[in-house]
């Protein structure tokens, strides 16, 4: 398309999904992702594709399970409490090796919380909020344009590894507008056929979608296959960004909206002579442990900044393993850290 347009993050995710060939979208309304639903309500029927406002988040994720079984690209979106309701369904998707995209426009929690931006669902997304040994690929966009490109990528990764993929956004990213170059729509017909999909047992043996076997030895084998795929994803798909880390003494570890704010902090800090850099994981699962480990060997401090009580912080500490200081600065409940607030923290570790 080439043409720059000013759009909300929610709309960009929706539009990118459409351009990635999403055929079926199912969701239940919730703030702050209402515009995503609305964009789909307007545009999916127009394109002859499926939009269903489900009776609940449980309904929606299980409709996704159905559509994914049949082999079409499919998506659902929600925000924190709604995502909690999808946990059983996500575990089933993972267990049944079904590709699907799930968007969480995170808000303040726990419980009903509020509708302001937050990053307090990182654990749920990356460690597995559902039951069982599974992982989703979790992508953490930092700007509105990146929300678009990562959504396109999400569909590709989902298909490639037969796995659910989550876009972990937040209320700010969903609500804000920013100029964006919308990616070109893919050619749906050119996507590889899914031989495993339950499209009707015509001229072949039946295909079965399932996440269970009552024989533990068989279920173990199914789990080993999942784990094999997770190791492959860890090998191939780790994505991250480093900003001004070359000479950095202090590095901020942050993702998503917080990372974006941190970029302003770098400018402010460098203006004051503090050698500050940024390590930004783009894949939150698989987490970029190795590059952060490497980086931690040559900095004094890795300051984790999150809109949470310290969740990604655990992964940072796992990577750093006490090689550097690993302090934490977090805001909670929908409060967004300000550049000045972060700078104040940075200064505590600058010498």
């Amino acid at each position, binding site marked *: 398309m080439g043409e720059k347009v*000013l759009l909300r993050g929610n709309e960009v995710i929706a539009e990118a999904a459409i351009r990635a060939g999403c055929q079926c979208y199912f969701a239940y309304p919730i703030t702050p992702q209402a515009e995503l639903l609305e964009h789909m309500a307007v545009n999916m029927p127009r394109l002859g594709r499926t939009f269903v406002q489900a009776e609940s988040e449980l309904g929606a994720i299980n409709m996704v399970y159905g559509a994914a079984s049949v082999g079409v690209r499919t998506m659902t979106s929600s925000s924190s409490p709604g995502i909690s309701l999808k946990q059983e369904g996500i575990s089933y998707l993972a267990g049944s090796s079904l590709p699907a995209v799930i968007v969480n426009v995170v808000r303040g929690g726990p419980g009903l919380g509020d509708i302001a931006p937050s990053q307090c669902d990182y654990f749920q997304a990356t460690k597995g909020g559902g039951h069982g040994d599974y992982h989703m690929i979790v992508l953490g966009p930092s700007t509105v344009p990146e929300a678009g490109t990562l959504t396109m990528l999400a569909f590709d990764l989902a298909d490639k590894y037969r796995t659910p993929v989550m876009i972990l956004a937040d209320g700010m990213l969903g*609500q*804000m507008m920013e100029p964006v170059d919308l990616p070109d729509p893919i050619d749906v017909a050119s996507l590889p056929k899914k031989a495993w999909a339950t499209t009707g047992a015509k001229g072949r043996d039946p295909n079965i979608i399932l996440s269970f076997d009552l024989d533990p030895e068989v279920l173990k084998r199914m789990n080993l296959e999942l784990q094999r795929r997770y190791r492959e994803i860890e090998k191939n798909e780790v994505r991250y960004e480093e900003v001004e880390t070359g000479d950095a003494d202090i590095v901020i570890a942050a993702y998503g909206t917080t990372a974006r*704010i941190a970029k302003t902090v770098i400018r402010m800090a460098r203006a004051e002579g503090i050698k500050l850099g940024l390590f930004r994981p783009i894949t939150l699962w698989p987490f970029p442990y190795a590059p952060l480990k490497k980086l931690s060997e040559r900095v004094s401090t890795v300051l984790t900044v999150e809109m949470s009580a310290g969740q990604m912080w655990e992964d940072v500490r796992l990577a750093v393993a006490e090689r550097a200081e690993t302090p934490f600065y977090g805001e909670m409940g929908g409060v967004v850290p*300000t550049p000045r607030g972060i700078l104040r923290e940075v200064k505590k570790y600058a010498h």
Partner: protein
Amino acid sequence: MERSVIIAGFGGQGVILAGKILAQAAMNHGLEVTWLPSYGPEMRGGTANCTVVMANETVGSPIVDEPTSLIAMNLPSLDKFEQMVAKGGTIIVNSSLVNREVARNDLNVIKLPLNDLGAKVGNMRAINMIALGGYVKATGVVPLEVVKETMAQMLEKGGKGKFVPLNAKALDEGYNAAH
């Protein structure tokens, strides 16, 4: 160089749209830009606001703790945001509804009797454009013409083309009223 403005007022005063037009105009003018609304129930019946950041380079934080400007369309908005404005910044105040002076003296304060001016241009719904006109004059962040054109394009796209002349007049009115 980064400029930022918080536009705030009652639910019905059109602050969200004013912000969108400004952001789109700034983008058309070649600037990097972010637009961030307050959202959800707080808007209903109560107050609404949005933040526009415009810069030559990539915008860092779309939330600002020191906006360079504030457009306060009512008293609660002035009360809430006055202290945040950066030193030397600009405040546009709707003096029709705000019955107090701006307390700080390190700012460029422009009082516009928006409701009276609205009556003058013939439609109270256009007061957001009057305020925006005043803001453009005071800050010069985007040329008035670009704002006008952008407004016209956006209203036409939304099927509200018939309101373009009124809003153009309102932009002029605000622009001229700002000293």
